[in-house]
């Protein structure tokens, strides 16, 4: 009888040597005449344990990690292929506290199944949402998504169902679904993990969006920094087509929906929805003015549903289990779960899917295990490079769109980058402006020129030149960028800059007690 062994094929697991580990297991098993069936799964999202190897046993899946090729002979000696004890053994995977305490809805299958196996997908509840959507009228599907309370997971948090309703209500011969997979924010990797670990979930969500709005063609815009995700999606689309889940008649329902995957080209701004549309049309990724809304006039001038990977991947479970099931998670107007991503200086980095309402302290300390360096955590940047730096004094605020907005921060795409007390916040503020210089599309002046001036002013502050006046100038410049930019690139770059200045004035050479 063969032993089933799981070795992740996720980019991060590969970046730590998972390929060599899989090879070593295959080689060692052959030498010992043990028949193994190696499944290349997605990652469970516990990256301090990657490469995390799991062995299927009658007691469930047993976890070993982090495994390096040189550990493999010893693991076989200990009998790991029967789930035996070893210094790298963590017991049953599902009982590892980091995983056991999560609420995995969107990520229910990631790390569990073989990403490209349609049989595996179906055996784990795949396409149940699509089947239910097929039996419903388009307007009912849209209502289900609206009632679930799902809001755009890309960062802007706009209600997904309302966007879909606009597209449904706009008559057109051709409509599109455009999936934004240009996950460029530092500290975020949930889109990548899902595309690599459970690609059919995204395809299913897009097909549901197509049927609900009358769109027949979908595009996934993946960043060029994600070569593995790109290839996985291409393979998944081909298999889904062959299986009848995409194409002229989705699951035999008589209505068409197909998907093409396109590669970005290293422009952060193309994560902004209108810039992404320009790029998909083959142009420079220059932001469009709104209105018209993309839901009315989007890709190639046609009504277009634009959603982030996480929004679309949350749709299948909403349709399968009903709006109420999903809405029961979360608090206030932030319903459901968010796959938070713990990154930067933490012992236990990884993916934590939790209902809204969890605090940063719980994520950083209970899940993250504190800093990797062992030094005190000083701040965390939440929501990507355009998100605010949250000081330790605000670690207990519940992660909820409204509560974060009230303190001048944003939840965004749920990326959290932790910094220990060696961080120089003036340098980080300068970095935010410099990033905007590099990535601005150039269309509007506050962003294009404001960011250049921002770097110069911060340099003068750091050098101690006429500090009081230059700080006033920086704040005024931030105000102009915030109010005058066309999109979030220039409009939110002030968030990291001003939060750094407000909470860490001493790093800018300002007496803490004197700072306003």
């Amino acid at each position, binding site marked *: 009888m063969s032993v089933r062994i799981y070795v992740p094929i996720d980019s991060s697991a590969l970046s730590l040597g998972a390929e060599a580990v899989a090879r070593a297991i295959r080689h060692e098993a052959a030498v010992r005449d043990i028949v193994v069936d190696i499944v290349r799964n997605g990652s469970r999202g516990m990256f301090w344990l990657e490469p995390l190897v799991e062995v299927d046993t009658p007691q469930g899946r047993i976890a070993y990690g982090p495994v390096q090729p040189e550990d493999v002979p010893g693991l076989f000696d200990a009998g790991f292929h029967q789930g035996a004890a070893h210094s790298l053994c963590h017991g049953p995977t599902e009982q590892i506290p980091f995983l056991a305490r999560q609420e995995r809805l969107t990520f229910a299958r990631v790390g569990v199944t073989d990403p490209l196996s349609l049989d595996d997908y179906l055996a784990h509840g795949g396409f149940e949402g699509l089947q239910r959507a097929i039996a419903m009228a388009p307007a009912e599907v849209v209502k289900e998504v609206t009632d679930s309370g799902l809001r755009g997971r890309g960062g802007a948090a706009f209600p997904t169902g309302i966007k879909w309703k606009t597209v449904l209500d706009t008559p057109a011969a051709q409509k599109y679904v455009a999936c934004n997979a240009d996950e460029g924010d530092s500290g975020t990797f949930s889109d990548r993990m899902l595309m690599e670990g459970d690609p059919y979930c995204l395809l299913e969500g897009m097909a549901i969006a197509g049927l609900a709005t009358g769109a027949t063609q979908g595009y996934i815009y993946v960043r060029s920094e994600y070569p593995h995700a790109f290839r996985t999606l291409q393979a998944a689309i081909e298999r889904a087509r062959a299986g009848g889940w995409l194409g002229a008649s989705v699951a035999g329902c008589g209505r068409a929906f197909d998907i093409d995957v396109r590669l970005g080209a290293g*422009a952060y701004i193309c994560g902004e929805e209108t810039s992404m549309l320009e790029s998909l049309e083959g*142009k420079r990724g220059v932001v469009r003015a709104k209105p018209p809304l993309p839901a009315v006039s989007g890709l190639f001038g046609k009504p277009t549903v634009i959603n982030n990977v996480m929004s679309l991947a949350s749709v299948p479970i909403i349709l399968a289990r009903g709006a109420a099931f999903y809405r029961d998670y979360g608090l206030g107007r932030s319903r459901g779960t968010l796959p938070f991503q713990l990154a930067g200086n933490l012992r236990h980095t990884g993916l934590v899917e939790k209902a809204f309402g969890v605090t940063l302290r719980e994520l950083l300390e209970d899940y993250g295990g504190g800093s990797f360096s062992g030094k005190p955590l000083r701040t965390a940047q939440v929501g990507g490079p355009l998100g605010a730096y949250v000081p330790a004094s605000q670690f207990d605020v519940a992660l909820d769109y409204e509560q974060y907005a009230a303190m001048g921060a944003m939840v965004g795409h749920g990326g959290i980058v932790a910094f220990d007390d060696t*961080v120089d916040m003036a340098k980080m503020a300068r970095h935010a402006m410099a990033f905007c210089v590099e990535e601005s599309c150039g269309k509007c002046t506050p962003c294009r020129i404001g960011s250049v001036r921002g770097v110069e002013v911060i340099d003068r502050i750091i050098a101690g030149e006429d500090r009081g006046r230059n700080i006033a100038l920086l704040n005024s410049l931030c105000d102009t960028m915030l109010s005058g930019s066309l999109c979030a690139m220039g409009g939110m770059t002030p968030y990291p800059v001003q939060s750094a200045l407000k909470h860490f004035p001493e790093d800018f050479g300002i007496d803490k007690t004197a700072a306003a």
Partner: protein
Amino acid sequence: MTKETPSAAGLAALIDARRALPGATLPILHAIQDAYGYVPDEALPMIAAALNLSRAEVQGVVSFYHHFRRTPPGRHVVQVCRAESCLAMGAEALEAHVKAKLGVDFHETTADGAVTLEPVYCLGNCACSPAMRVDDDILGRMNGRRFDAVLHQLQQTEGASA
């Protein structure tokens, strides 16, 4: 990753296979760069003609995106991540080490033509910072010692195939 030398016939075939795609510019540019390692000058008028665009429009697209190169890179491309998560884990020291070890700055190629060094903002490997990309391989939890080992291996592979 030795690439072919661009030829008019090769370029025409790559363009023809994709010109009918909606929004074909980026797919064509990717195909050309994947084949040759960069987008050669002679490709621009050909793309413009195929897509009924002006040469300036094509030039504008190529220059907008960081990914597209106008000159041949070294035989290997090394990218060092400069985004926040990697900065929180010592990316600056790693960047300094890599530059010193290779003897080049960003956007430069080593004198022997082996390695082109580029900055990158986020490889999506933030749970394993600091991160790098060497050709198509993404590497995590990097430090100077691990980079030296990767470089040594590249040099050995090159020596073996030479």
